[in-house]
């Protein structure tokens, strides 16, 4: 049923293959370089590992744009014997997000973790490995390889959280680690069953065998894999580890965690349910169930975000909520509005990533400048850190789904899809979710404009200055989130080309 | 016949292990537990050697060899542990 399986496939020119491989291996080797002592290897590793990524992705994007999705067989072994990489518009989109958000967050981190010295020595190898792991994950077409990638993402992300060093951070890391390991095991158990039911580990060949396998086996396997991914992706009600972990991590790490790392699990859920599961498996109910969880996330996360007293916790709970949007589109997979829903979902993926990363970077600047991120301490932020506030507000506009922003276009598409497919409950959830988002974003903004002390006795010097470049990083991401509200048409066309095959209703 | 003898031997050795398990479980002193655990290593080696023939995998003798070596490490690791009140019980 999936598009890529029905179209004749080709491996693109070697140039593209090399670009794909480089996207994974440059940061990986960069990490190796950053392990070595001294400033130079670290800087070399960072620059060589991150800077070429956009250029490589241009080549990959053009190739996918012109010739469609492509495989790359590693070692020259065809699936199911070997492992292959698969690149399609969705994967390209994710790679771009890693390159842009990972790159900008890295620029932000450069100042807090100077390469090659002190904490920088600990930070950069992990960071580069994380980037490499996410790129590998988005490209991998093999269920077991994805398990390894998931573990690599987990085992690089958690130490990065722990680098914050606070008691809360260590505690959150510990809990995240235990639950992430549990999630991986559930995933692995499901994969074990799938392999024995189908004889293959290839994400896109599994579907061939699933029809013949006993339904009970398929159900159990898919349920276990999904459960694991829902836990890794912090989907309500399995989100319990996320808020503290994301809120207590160092700023750039929070940005990447919320914008990219949790998305890896959602991405795999998409791959599993929209590519691997064939139409013969009655998946309608499962997709609706996932959407119900998404709706729960949207509402619960929104309400909880509204109750938090610390800025970073508000943003973290906002992540819990916003992930819900990504699951809401699933029940529309069998409707005629699916291409619109797909565009809306993926555009939400993109704009939330940009906006959320901007918010976390801005929050890091604020925390660093003010020494606190309690909402009650944010008074007169417009005087003290106007640019960080500006970034926060711009990103907030996108999170709320108000124009002009990428978030607005995503919300429009989602609304249109729900309307066209007649899924009224989804429509209601979308509306409620966006109103909740508006409530918590404006709550932050209100806290920053408040002036309990009208005489302005507070000296301006209490604000610690932060490097202009760090402010610029947050601003840049926020502006990108806004720009996503203008330059959508070609991007959406590209996304639409990769819409997973539309189902025929059983 | 040979097969029967081998498998019976393996079973006896395994049951032997089970008795050892009881000692590890019951204690009462850490020394009891440690000795039982060391006995374990030895018996495991024996089981592996029997299995090598019964299952028909000579490579299992390598495994047995490995266990012999590791037994030394585990015993040092045990010996290095402090005795706590709980274990003196």
């Amino acid at each position, binding site marked *: 049923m999936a598009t890529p399986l029905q179209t004749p496939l080709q491996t693109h020119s070697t140039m593209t293959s090399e670009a794909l491989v480089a996207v994974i291996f440059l940061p990986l080797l960069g990490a190796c370089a950053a392990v070595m002592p001294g400033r130079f290897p670290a800087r070399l590793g960072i620059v060589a590992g991150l800077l070429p990524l956009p250029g490589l992705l241009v080549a990959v994007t053009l190739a996918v744009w012109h010739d469609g999705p492509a495989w790359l067989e590693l070692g020259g072994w065809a699936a199911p014997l070997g492992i292959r990489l698969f690149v399609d518009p969705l994967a390209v989109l994710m790679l771009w997000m890693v390159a842009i958000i990972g790159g900008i967050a890295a620029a932000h981190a450069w100042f807090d973790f100077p390469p090659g010295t002190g904490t920088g020595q600990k930070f950069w190898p992990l960071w580069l490995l994380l980037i490499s792991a996410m790129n590998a994950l988005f490209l991998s077409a093999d269920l077991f390889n994805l398990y390894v990638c998931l573990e690599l993402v987990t085992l690089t992300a958690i130490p990065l959280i722990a680098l914050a060093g606070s008691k809360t951070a260590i505690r959150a890391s510990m809990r995240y680690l235990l639950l992430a390991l549990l999630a991986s095991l559930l995933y692995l158990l499901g994969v074990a069953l799938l392999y024995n039911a189908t004889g293959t580990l290839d994400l896109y060949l599994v579907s061939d065998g699933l029809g013949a396998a006993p339904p009970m086996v398929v159900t159990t396997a898919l349920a276990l894999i999904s459960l694991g991914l829902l836990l890794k992706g912090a989907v309500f009600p399995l989100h319990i580890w996320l808020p503290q972990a994301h809120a207590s991590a160092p700023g750039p790490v929070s940005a990447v965690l919320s914008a990219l790392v949790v998305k890896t699990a959602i991405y795999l859920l998409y791959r599993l349910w929209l590519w691997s599961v064939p139409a013969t498996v009655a998946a309608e109910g499962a997709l609706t169930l996932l959407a119900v969880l998404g709706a729960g996330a949207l509402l619960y996360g929104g309400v909880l975000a509204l109750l938090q007293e610390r800025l970073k916790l508000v943003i973290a709970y906002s992540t819990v909520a916003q992930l819900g949007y990504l699951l809401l589109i699933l029940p529309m997979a069998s409707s005629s509005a699916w291409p619109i829903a797909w565009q809306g979902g993926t555009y939400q993926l993109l704009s939330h990533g940009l906006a959320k990363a901007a918010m976390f970077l801005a929050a890091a600047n604020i925390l660093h400048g003010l020494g606190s991120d309690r909402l009650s301490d944010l008074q007169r932020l417009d005087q003290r850190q106007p640019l960080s506030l500006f970034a926060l507000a711009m990103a907030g506009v996108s999170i709320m789904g108000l124009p002009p922003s990428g978030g*607005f276009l995503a919300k429009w598409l989602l609304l249109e899809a729900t309307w066209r497919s007649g899924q009224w409950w989804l429509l209601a959830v979308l509306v409620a979710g966006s109103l909740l988002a508006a409530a918590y974003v*404006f709550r932050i903004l209100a806290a920053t404009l408040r002036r309990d002390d009208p005489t*302005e006795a507070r000296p301006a010097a209490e604000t610690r200055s932060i490097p202009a470049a760090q402010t610029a990083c947050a601003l840049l991401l926020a502006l990108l989130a806004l720009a996503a509200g203008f330059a959508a048409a070609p991007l959406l066309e590209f996304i639409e080309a990769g819409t997973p095959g539309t189902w025929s209703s059983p | 016949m040979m097969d029967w003898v081998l498998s019976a031997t393996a079973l006896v050795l395994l049951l032997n292990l089970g008795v050892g398990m009881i000692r590890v479980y019951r204690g009462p002193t850490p020394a009891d537990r440690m000795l039982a655990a060391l006995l374990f290593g030895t018996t495991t080696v024996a089981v592996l050697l029997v299995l090598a023939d019964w299952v028909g995998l000579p490579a299992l003798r390598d495994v047995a060899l490995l266990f012999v070596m590791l037994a030394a490490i585990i015993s040092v690791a045990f010996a290095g542990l402090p005795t706590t009140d709980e274990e003196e019980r």
Partner: protein
Amino acid sequence: MSFGWQALPLHIILVSVVTAILIFALGEQRQHTRTLLNLAGALLKLLLILIMLLAIQAGATFEFRLPLLPGLDLLLHADRLTMLFATLSALLWLVTTVYAIGYLEQSPNRARFFGFFSLCVAATMGVASAGNLFTFFIFYELLTLATWPLVVHRGTPEAFAAGRLYLAYTLAGGVLLLIGLVWLHTLAGAGDFIIDGSLAPIAAGNENALRGVFVLLMLGFGVKAALLPLHSWLPRAMVAPAPVSALLHAVAVVKAGAFGLVRLVQDVFGFELAASLGLTDLLAWMAAATIIYGSVLALKQNDLKRRLAYSTVSQVSYIALGVATGSVLATVGGLVHLVNQGLTKITLFFCAGNYAEAYGIHKVEELDGLGERMPVTSVCFTLGALGMIGVPPLAGFITKWHLGAGAITAGAPWVIAVLVASTLLNAAYFLPIVQRIWFRPLPEEMAQRHDRLGRIRRAALITPTVFVAVASLGAGLLAGIPGSPLFWVVRLVGVEGP
């Protein structure tokens, strides 16, 4: 997509946006540069609008198109209705800016204030020149975003409470609007909505869907236009500084809602279609109810600005009433009130601001005898009040005359009754104020007080007040000559109306 001459509406928006960005960037301290920048921006914008006005008179067309989503473009264009609203808001921006410079002298956070003020005006220009409902919605929401910091500007708990209420209403309204838009989009497919009669071909069989869309859109616009029962945010927002009130009531926000209703009836549905679906009656009744209700509540208010606010609730609905009544004359009455109400109400708010700044007066009963202490302001206030009541030949009269005459031609004589009742109520809540100002003695303690204004500030506050008062006077007295608002509206309706 071209950024040249054709894209003039975009450039007019950008003038305000750039002004806003520069003001933000300048920071709090550079007061003189900011003032200069502000005035330059306002003047440049006014100039560009005048050029565009002349060009349109000469038959030029303007269009800027940027594809945002497949089948949905950001479209800016300029028709006569655009020009009516754009000219009004640009002119009042200039005036209000001058007034605000004087009003906010020495108060904190001026950079923020003027920055968001400029953004509001940019959004208003976007609303005016939106070429389709999608674009309209974008700028409409932008307007919400840009006005919120102004509403909460004072930073007090009351200000934030008002801000919360404002957001609750406008964002909920935005959601209704959005849903209506999505619905309309799925019905009518791709394309621009503001094409007269474009919905007629699909009307058959979709009557109820179109009714649903109309109601949703009407409620969405109704929030900002303060239609009953969606009005209660407006009086609460009175905690904001006087220039903000002027902005909310006259320049941008309420007007954007009313303008949306005009676009909805005139352009999106077309009067014929809306009337045939029974929708104009609905709107007319809601508007009539709002007119009466607002006036009655205004009567009860003791706070001057709150009384003015309820007056706005009432008066803005004249616009909707005129458009919904449908005949040419009534439409003229409604549209001309867009301008007349703006000029008159801004006069009144400036005066209220002057009283508050000079003597700290907020209540109606404190106004006794102020005519002798603040003659200029008081004369302006009186002119505004009389204009609101509709005393001939002032601006309000022009509106009411056309509305009444139009209602008769449209066969809706009940509108006359509404007008009469409203006029009596207007008189009932305005005349006592006028009477207090001129015919009550000044209290003893007031006689000893001096006003708190310096010379320069007084000039900065009085000049704009006089200017808008004269303009509103002119809108009534000189309604017959070419160039007057009535002149424009008649041409507009003559060419484009139903």
